[in-house]
């Protein structure tokens, strides 16, 4: 039953990403070329609404459906892991026009080469796991 909830939420998200065109390679190029407000508007609205909601949840002590605290653990501070990892992901994001969420949605749209993209992304994560102890974090 709980899994049905996640399936529904994922489906909702896939529809939103498609209807917002955020899964489009073209929109990502347009964003990195600063030629439209579209993607900045989407991410900006999500962050502003998200920040207001998270602040309210802390203010009023909102709980999860099981009565626990929301999963908002602070992230450990460091610079290299976020900066270097972020730069590498950014290179891939601008190249493919896809991030890990939209990859799945694009597969549902019948773009079969995306299946290979998901495989190579999984392989990239595997290689990170192998090299992890030798990378600065």
């Amino acid at each position, binding site marked *: 039953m709980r*899994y049905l909830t996640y399936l529904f939420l994922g489906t909702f998200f896939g529809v939103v990403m498609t209807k*917002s065109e955020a899964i*489009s390679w073209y929109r990502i190029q347009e964003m990195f070329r600063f030629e439209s407000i579209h993607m900045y508007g989407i991410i900006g609205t999500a962050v502003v609404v998200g920040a207001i909601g998270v602040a309210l949840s802390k203010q009023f002590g909102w709980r999860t459906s099981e009565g626990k605290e*929301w999963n908002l653990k602070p992230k450990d501070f460091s610079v290299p892991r976020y*900066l270097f990892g972020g730069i590498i992901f950014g*290179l891939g994001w601008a190249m493919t026009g896809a991030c890990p969420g939209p990859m*799945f949605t694009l597969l549902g749209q019948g773009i079969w080469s995306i299946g290979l993209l998901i495989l190579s992304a999984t392989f990239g994560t595997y290689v990170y796991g192998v090299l992890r102890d030798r990378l600065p974090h």
Partner: protein
Amino acid sequence: MYDLIAGPWHWSVSGLLIALTMFALLYAGKAFGFSSNLRTMCSIAGAGKRVKFFDFDWKAQRWNLVFAGGAILGGFIAYYLIPNPEPVQLSAATLNYLDEAGVSRPGSTPGFSSFAPAELFGIDSLLSLKGLIVIIIGGFLIGFGTRWAGGCTSGHAISGLSNLQLPSLIAVVGFFIGGLTMSWLVLPFILQL
């Protein structure tokens, strides 16, 4: 009503609905972040036997895989059952750039998605150098970079910034350093291959 659903949706509506998705997951006791699914997939494939990083209880992450499965289904429904009535309406400047770079405009390849150029993502493109570079190297960079950074657009840009996390801001700055470098300096060369 149908036209309203078929889209495209205004960016403010889309942003609001993405935030609502995040809240729904938080209410369920989870966190919004797609890239951890890639780690889970490595574990399921048995990587935990060789590499400690993948030796964890992936079953606790099944909900996220189901969520990703839903994202596939949502793409199918939104694309095939209630298609967007028109191709992506890009700014004139971006169209100009596409023409100069020799990339087809949205919707100009019959029978192929109007969300991505067929030269890079059509099944034939897997036989071309630029198509292979984008799919194989691009995918690798996404998988490697998101895990090193500990998150992607959903985990850092949306969830992390909403929670005012400085590490997420550093990650997003990184996303843009990488993205701008690729878009302005590297991709134009790849497109010429």
